[in-house]
């Protein structure tokens, strides 16, 4: 997952590296995803979330649709 100055830079990168455009998140959306995913990683009780838990987390952040589908 890379950081870009804007959408036009993403478009240029996709052409340069022959990559299809994936999903674009704002800084704030990416931060909320990172926080939900990692903030408790050092807790003794941490365990890898189940598929269903991950799906619920993504849906709670509005990350739905084929790109975010885990199955």
């Amino acid at each position, binding site marked *: *997952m890379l950081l870009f100055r804007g959408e036009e830079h993403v478009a240029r990168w996709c052409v340069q590296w022959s990559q299809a455009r994936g999903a674009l998140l704002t800084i704030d959306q990416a931060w909320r995803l990172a926080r939900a995913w*990692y903030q408790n990683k050092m807790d003794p009780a941490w365990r890898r979330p189940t598929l269903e838990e991950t799906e619920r987390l993504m849906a709670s952040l509005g990350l739905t649709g084929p790109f975010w589908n885990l199955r």
Partner: protein
Amino acid sequence: MNGFSFDNDVRLQLYRQFVASGEPPTSENLAAGMGRPLAEVRAALERLAAGKAIVLQPESREILMANPLSAVPTPFRVRSQGRWFFGSCVWDAMGIVAMLGDEAVLDASCGCCGEAMGLTFRAGEPLPAEGVVHFAIAARRWWENIVFT
């Protein structure tokens, strides 16, 4: 000793040593820190990697990623708690900020043109900044090659 409990102890020791020193611990460092035989710690690391809790380097079997921390330098660098850490991608770099729960600075650059881009976090939130995050690989394929996401 309960297998899950020991593996979780190894995982916690790994993260704590990594964060305390700013350097990825070797399996020998971990074994010494826990007072456990190296072979037991290596076996636990392999089980943690099989369970996708961490990622090991392909040949040495030392830590590559204790996500969100990267054991090798990357273009995504975070300053937190007075130390520098690397994330494997911008999402992981943000994850370091979230995990360490501190004010932080994230240094990166535009994936396209290389222009320097920095994010500053205060009171648990990023200050307004220009930029977008691009996820190139669909979520269900992330673990096909976790080094390339």
